């Protein structure tokens, strides 16, 4: 039974990591109607900058801050030069332009940092295990991520629903021309939102660095999951993305934990593992297909 709780916690942690990435994506997509395939690249850049600065300064939090600043600057530059011209273009052209950006980012990282994976360890202050479940320890770092994810969710809620900028953002998203007519500087607002999305993605990358491998193309595998999250959650909905992120985190983790065991009961050990393993990887996409068939606009399409 304890194992189940631990798996549930693992699912929660994966869900929160996905939410960090997906929140930036759904903001940009929901408010500016922009499909940004290169969102994963900012996740990668965040991880690389965090790793490099941490290794030089020895201070993980300094690394994270450096990554956030770098992502903000990068976000502003990309938005002003490229994204600004894409808002009114068809989704397909957004896909083509951001597909090009993926190639550009992957190759520039390879030129700057080389193709070898980078090393970054958990900050010493969090490198211990919490005796959460009696016999086994649960890495404190992962609990920190869960807590941080929830804090960011609340912060986003306050920002969107109770702050002036949030109000402007919602106005901008529902009717861009009207907002502009009322004197809101939409361009600066959109640059701000895009940069904010970039910062969120880089933060997710920075935090994921110590757990996962910091390597080229790390953004793309996570990008697909992030798109699944925001579609299931309802595009543009922060609340929806959080629920969907947790749902996918848990389904994927429990699937990987229990499906192989389930198939082993009536198959040979290796066949059961193979069938169970592959079904686990299909589970998320099956979940998305089912939800889209039942609710073609995702779980909740409100902001």
């Amino acid at each position, binding site marked *: 039974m304890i194992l189940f709780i631990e798996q549930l916690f693992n699912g929660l942690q994966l869900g929160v990591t996905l939410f960090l990435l997906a929140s930036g994506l759904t903001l940009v997509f929901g408010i500016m109607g922009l*499909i940004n*395939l290169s969102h994963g690249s900012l996740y990668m850049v965040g991880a690389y900058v965090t790793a490099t600065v941490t290794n030089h300064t020895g201070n993980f939090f300094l690394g994270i801050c450096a990554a956030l600043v770098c992502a903000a600057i990068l976000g502003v530059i990309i938005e002003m030069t*490229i994204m600004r*011209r*894409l808002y009114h*273009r068809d*989704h*397909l*052209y957004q*896909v*083509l*332009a951001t*597909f*090009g*950006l*993926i*190639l*550009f*980012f*992957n*190759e*520039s990282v*390879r*030129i700057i940092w080389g193709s070898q994976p980078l090393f970054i360890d958990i900050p010493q202050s969090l490198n211990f295990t919490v005796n959460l479940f009696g016999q086994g320890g649960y890495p404190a770092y992962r609990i920190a991520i869960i807590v941080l994810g929830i804090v960011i969710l609340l912060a986003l809620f306050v920002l969107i629903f109770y702050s002036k900028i949030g109000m402007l953002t919602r106005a901008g998203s529902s009717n861009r021309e009207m907002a502009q007519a009322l004197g809101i500087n939409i361009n600066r607002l959109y640059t701000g939102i895009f940069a904010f999305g970039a910062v969120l993605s880089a933060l997710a990358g920075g935090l994921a660095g110590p757990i996962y491998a910091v390597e080229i193309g790390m953004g*793309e595998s996570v990008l*697909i999951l992030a*798109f*699944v999250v925001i*579609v299931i959650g309802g*595009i543009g909905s922060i609340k929806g993305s959080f629920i969907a992120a947790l749902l996918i985190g848990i389904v994927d983790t429990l699937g990987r934990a229990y499906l192989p065991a389930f198939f082993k009961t009536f198959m040979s050990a290796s066949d059961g593992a*193979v*069938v169970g*393993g*592959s079904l686990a*990887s*299909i589970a998320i*996409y*099956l979940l*998305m*297909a089912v939800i*889209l*068939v039942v609710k*073609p*606009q*995702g779980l909740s399409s409100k902001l």
Partner: protein
Amino acid sequence: MTRLNRQSLIIGLTFLVLAVLPPLLSAIDQSYYVSIASKILIYALVGISLDLIIGQAGLVSFGHAAFFGMGGYVCGVLSHHSANDLLVFSVFTGTNNALISWPLAVLVCMVLGIIIGVISLRTTGVYFIMITLALAQMVYFLIISIPQYGGEDGLSLWTRNKLPGLNLQDDTQFYYICLAWVIIYLLIAHKLIYSSLGLMIKGAKLNHQRLIALGHPPFKAQLMIFVLSAMGSGLAGALMVNLTQYVSPDYLHWSLSGKFLVIVILGGIGFLFGGLYGALILLGLEEILSSYTDHWHFILGIALVIIVLTSKSGLYASLVGRKAT
């Protein structure tokens, strides 16, 4: 020189060059490039079939690699079984005869197209893009988990499929087979686009509300064109597997679906020959850039961004001054 006959001049010229390319290349001792040209034609076939549903029906599929890969796997599995005389599902004997495996590949893709089409056509817009991506990823993970067909290592075909009277091992003959299929598919697409069925599909794309109010649900017509597009990509997959004599899950990967979209956009959406020029431009760029530097992705990435920012409706279309529908 009005826009129309400048366009038909370029198309005519293109097909002239394509028709004489192999002898031309061997004349200048570059016959190696014939197989690269075949690859461009195969990608063009996918581009044309994908452009059918994006251009005519407004359905943006991000999962066409599923059909491309599935077509390839049908051929790969059949010839794998015939080479090692194992039985498929312990019932059918494998075959290396193109007259059986190619139609079968197209048939399997038709069924897969119906399944994915029926599910995906319940959604519209961005959700359609996402659901096709999700279903294609499921096909990818399904195939990769079947141990006997090599999973990640893929399957090698010892020889290309056999066609009576022709030797497909010879690159030039294989090139002309690919060219023939591209032309046949173009004719089918042309017939569909200018038919009454094509008119209804276009109408549904441009004003879905009016078609419904007239009592004509576009689902059946959209499914039909979706399946036709799936069959085209499946055939291209079968040809690709014969060209490289190898099939692997990479042919089902989502980045390939992305590449197909890039080809359609580069060629110009809704333009019948768009897939051909998109494939020529993208693969041409790849070939040129990769011969100069290992970091060609870097340059291709920037080139794609510039192409989107400068042209309104696809590089080729803007060259000919065509406005995309």
